[in-house]
């Protein structure tokens, strides 16, 4: 077997040195009835066979690059520079562990420090951690953090929050018997989350651009929250929007949670992704997750270490801020590399290109009879109200080579009002031909 260096002669010799008769002696504590089970699984296979079988499976899927593609809602198709994948495949990054021995992990630690700085700058916040699993679990952690900060047990989730983020947050909060109010889907951004905040509210969670693509002004919500002693948790699922939109920090957010996939990470059928998590300095010690900090070594040279680990499970055990143990290591590296290439200037231009692509797509689709663009404002994603069931249209267009977007029924299967909604994303990857093809096929299907 190609992954195992020992051969039978080695094994015999090692057993002799140990003084054991056979390998089975090491397993003698296993209850007899649990030994020697049978497994209905194939034996080992060569690279060629494995590659052939899994390539056949991959071929049954429609890659985003295979044709006109307009699907978003929390995961976005963007171009990733070739440099990114090369760097994350370097052995020293790919096959390293968590940097618990900082003397031989400065590579990982320094990029985490750079990543934290990038995230703080993008979100407009004072401090950021070394990442969460993804945006949705980060959102749940933010609500739990607000609970610790405010010592309150009521959470208000905006109707513009991605419903899967809302579900994850509710699942986590139900465990500790908190009250979770999820506003109904707010397609036209007409709700007033500020009005729902009271003296018992721990946090109000608002996404911008929201799941329908609307750009939301968080400032009045932040003001209302702070007046009642509650926190504003801002959620961003499209990180490219940081290059165009006023940052949540500027608008008064207390915790910012974002999905960082758009920067450096492929769609990958939903994971692994990278959760960005940033907050105000004053809440630092209630923050979950790993943190990397600057210090000096015994010779006075600058170096980096994991720090404030007294918040974490391996030190604090049942008193930890979270049970989280990993971060999204390699995905943070992909983010950091792509962001280093982009810089603020590149990110701004990329954001503008995204916005222009979305405007062009919205204009073309909005001109189709039976199609109405719902949004007044948007960044690179918007919602259409169709005269027909959107899921059927999506299926129809998919078989015709166009992945048209996310039908409302996929995200809100229990809400008949969502049936005719189609959420469409357009990024820098969309071409004029893609837009024309989408519009003409949509016209035919409707």
């Amino acid at each position, binding site marked *: 077997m*190609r*992954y195992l260096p*020992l051969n039978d002669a*080695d094994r015999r010799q*090692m057993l002799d040195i140990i003084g054991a008769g056979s*390998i089975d002696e*090491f*397993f003698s504590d*296993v*209850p007899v009835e649990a030994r020697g*089970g049978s*497994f209905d699984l194939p034996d080992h296979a060569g*690279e060629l066979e494995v590659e052939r079988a*899994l390539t056949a*499976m*991959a071929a*049954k*899927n429609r890659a985003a690059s295979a044709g006109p593609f307009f*699907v978003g809602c929390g995961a976005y198709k963007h171009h990733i*520079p070739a440099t990114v994948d090369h760097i994350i495949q370097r052995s020293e990054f*790919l*096959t*390293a562990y968590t940097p618990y021995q900082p*003397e*031989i992990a400065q*590579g990982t630690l320094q990029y985490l420090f750079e990543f934290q700085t*990038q995230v703080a700058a993008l979100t407009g916040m004072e401090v950021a951690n070394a990442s969460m*699993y993804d*945006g949705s679990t980060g959102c749940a952690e933010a609500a739990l953090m607000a609970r610790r900060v405010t010592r309150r047990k009521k959470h208000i989730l905006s109707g513009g929050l991605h419903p899967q983020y809302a579900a*994850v947050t509710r*699942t986590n909060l139900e465990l500790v*018997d908190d009250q979770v109010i999820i506003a109904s889907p707010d397609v036209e951004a007409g709700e007033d989350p500020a009005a729902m905040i009271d003296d018992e509210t721990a946090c109000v969670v608002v996404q911008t651009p929201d799941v329908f693509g609307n750009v*939301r002004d968080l400032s009045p919500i932040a003001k209302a929250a702070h007046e009642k002693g509650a926190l504003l948790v801002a959620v961003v699922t499209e990180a490219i929007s940081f*290059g*165009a*939109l006023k940052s949540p920090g500027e608008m008064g957010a207390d915790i910012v949670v974002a999905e960082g996939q758009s920067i450096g990470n492929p769609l990958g*059928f939903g994971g692994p992704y*990278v959760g960005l998590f940033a907050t105000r300095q004053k809440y630092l010690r209630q923050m979950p997750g*790993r943190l*990397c900090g600057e*210090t000096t070594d015994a010779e006075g040279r600058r170096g980096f270490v994991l*720090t*404030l680990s007294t918040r974490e499970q*391996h*030190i*604090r*055990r*049942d008193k930890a801020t979270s049970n989280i143990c*990993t971060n999204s290591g390699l995905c943070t590296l992909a983010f950091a590399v792509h962001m*280093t*290439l*982009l810089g*603020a200037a590149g990110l701004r*231009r*990329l954001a*503008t*290109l995204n916005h222009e692509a979305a405007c062009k797509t919205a204009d073309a689709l909005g001109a189709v009879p039976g199609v109405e663009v719902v949004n007044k*404002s948007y960044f690179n994603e918007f919602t259409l109200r169709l005269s027909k069931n959107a899921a059927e249209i999506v299926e129809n267009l998919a078989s015709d080579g166009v*992945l048209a977007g996310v039908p409302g029924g996929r995200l809100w299967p*229990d809400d008949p009002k969502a049936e005719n909604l189609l959420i469409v994303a357009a990024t820098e990857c969309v071409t004029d031909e893609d837009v024309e093809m989408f519009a003409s096929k949509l016209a035919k299907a409707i």
Partner: protein
Amino acid sequence: MTMNAQGRPTRSDAPTVNAAPTFTGNKALQIEEALIFEVGHFAGTGVDLPEPNGGVDRLGGLNRNTDIGLPGLSEPETMRHFVRLSQKNYAIDMGPFPLGSCTMKHNPRLNEKIARLPGFSDLHPLTPEAQCQGALELIDQLAFWLKELTGMPAVAMSPKAGAHGELCGMMAIKAALEARGEAGKRTRVLAPESAHGTNPATAVQCGFIVDAIPADKTGRVDLAALKENLGDDVAGIMVTNPNTCGLFERDIRAIADAVHEAGGYFYCDGANFNAIAGKVKPGDLGVDAMHINLHKTFSTPHGGGGPGSGPTVLSEALAPYAPVPYVHFEDGKFSLVETRRAAKAEGESAKSLGRLTAFHGQMGMFTRALAYMMSHGRDGIAQAAEDAVLNANYVLSRLKEEMTPAFDGYCMHEALFDDGFLKDTGVETIDFAKAMIDEGYHPMTMYFPLVVHGAMLIEPTESESKRELDQFCEALLSLAKRAKAGDVDAFKAAPLHAPRRRLDETAAARKPVLRWTSESSVQAAE
């Protein structure tokens, strides 16, 4: 002097000198590297993007008008920056990485290649089902392998990491108790003192109270103490098996039976499943839930601390509470059940505990893990477990000469030592570990498990050859001898040859500097 055919000397006759500091601070291949923010280029970029057309603005007046303040480096500068950083890291591809409990085994590159097939990597999670049948099939197949290897009837695939899998399992237990109307009464969770920190942290996150169970003299759960603690207020136990001392819990059936008789559930921390995979089915041990770290047992790369993946197998009793989404197969077609209500309509998961993450879990880890499993096969997975256990026992046996094993007898996949052999030397576990760095090894896990004084937990894995293990053991034996010979100063000073000497962690925590600012660069320049 020896000359080659061209008359060039083949050997240096330069006199030996002590290394003076270099002008750059570099040491040959070890090159000092600034932060990207110190390189500058705050107006620059390393990507070529087309000029925008201009003229459209539908951002609702919420444009970003303030500086973002992040540099953009050209491609060669970016490449050099990150390559230089990479060279300051130790990695499994460079040498033994014997971190106990972490399972640093070889990461096959076939797995990376498979994960990057466009059909997997460039696939949107909300692609219509008809256009992602291959992805759903892959999840279904991986689930089949995991169920077969564990002997458990169900598996939740979405947990994002081991700790997230623990959360999933404990949530399923809580949901089952709720269904029985006992959630209010059963509030205690028992976990051994030797447990991973994630266990108590997870239980608390689920609203439980945690009580520690002591270990017996052999390093295993004290069955009598466990039984004394059981009652109708106990939700369940969390036991790692093989445990964090590297030992198989030989009373595991009795433990499971006692907990079940008391009306509780058995959560098994599967962090050490790699020791028994293909040999023992946790389902035969009375387990109700167990997470599997794909990044340990099934070799998806650790990536400097993530991403992980923690599918969680569930017993018949807990399966109805599995989280959404899950893959369903009917009439030759795969589909996804994505909401609680849909699960209810399915009738399969009437009381699903809810959703743990957006989308479907760590697909990129699923592809890698399945490639690894198919490569190893049933026979190879068992052989890998056997070799891991053999390697650990070999290390235990050889190091016994100078070091002190924490417990008598054989171990499973990791060998645990205490600091008894360092008694009165002035050298502590951390010093011993740091001295290993100078010898070219990543240290073992230190000071864990907590039940052993100055613990050193060595997990060689199946990826090490006998030759590599021999050199490793000889290096550790020589260090142990040096410590006993009174060479304490050298240990306190170690490491001397790493990119950095010991770092001041106290200062880092006292006055946290967690990001670069323009002021901090001024300080650095002064």
